[in-house]
């Protein structure tokens, strides 16, 4: 009976799901660009309306349902990356994705112990410093991060030495300032 479901039932369910998702994609893409327009324009409601209309037309022009979804998603990621990290003005797709991941990591891991957040940021920095021409900006990503009281960094192409001082709130309201050090 189990084999029956795997061989017959699963493909049917999957194909129905894929079909449903592809029908849903244009609608989802329009939702993405509407949200992206709000984030992009921030407090400027008139500009936001303009962008929503304009990007809505782009979604209509994009061929294929999945393409529409991808285009809409890219606008959303781009808008988030643009305004969550205000100093970021680059045009690189790498940085758009990295900023989004960084923002996601910061907002979704608030309940994680500080040492895990430190590890996540270290991993991002470690990766970023390996992309030619972006090392300095990678350091900038971490500055102003509320998860850390201080960040000491000595980075070059050959060697990276980082000292993080994580912010962990204690019941007394004092901060844990234990150093977490790694070298590469």
């Amino acid at each position, binding site marked *: 009976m189990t084999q029956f479901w795997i061989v017959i039932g699963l493909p049917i369910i999957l194909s129905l799901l894929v079909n449903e998702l592809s029908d849903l994609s244009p609608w989802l893409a329009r939702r993405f660009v509407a949200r*992206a327009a709000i984030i*992009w324009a921030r407090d400027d409601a008139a500009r936001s309306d*303009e*962008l929503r*209309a*304009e*990007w*809505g*037309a*782009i979604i*209509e*022009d*994009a061929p294929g349902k999945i393409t529409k979804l991808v*285009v809409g998603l*890219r*606008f959303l*990621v*781009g*808008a988030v*990356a*643009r305004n969550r990290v205000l100093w970021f*003005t*680059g*045009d690189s*797709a790498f940085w*758009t994705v990295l900023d989004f991941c960084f923002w996601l990591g910061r907002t979704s891991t608030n309940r994680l112990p500080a040492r895990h957040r430190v590890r996540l940021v270290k991993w991002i920095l470690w990766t970023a410093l390996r992309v030619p021409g972006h090392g300095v900006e990678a350091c900038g990503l971490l500055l102003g991060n509320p998860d850390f009281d201080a960040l000491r960094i000595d980075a070059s192409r050959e060697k990276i030495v980082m000292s993080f001082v994580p912010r962990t709130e204690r019941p007394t309201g004092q901060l844990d300032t234990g150093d977490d050090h790694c070298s590469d």
Partner: protein
Amino acid sequence: MADEPTRITAPFLDVVEAFINAAGDELHGWAIIKASGRGGPTVYKILERLTEMGWVTARWDAEPAALNKPRRRYYKLTGDGARRARQLLSERRPANGNVVRGLRPAFGGGSR
């Protein structure tokens, strides 16, 4: 009077090149994205810069392409912007200079 770009990146040149290839035709958003080969947010950041610099003007389509569809917004190089864009491309991408002038866009442009 058009301003000079403060940062000239590869995506910036791609978008400028898309306009030059359009040979004076207007381009809508999707046409620019396709012609430049860059993502939507990247293109729009550059379009905002080009508009602020006075290289590009924009206008809304008078009527939507189809009923209940959103209207497109068309972009076009200004006279001064076109001159500076050609100059910039000839400096930064000299190998493409002759090809650029000979190409026409495969899709997109409205005409006025």
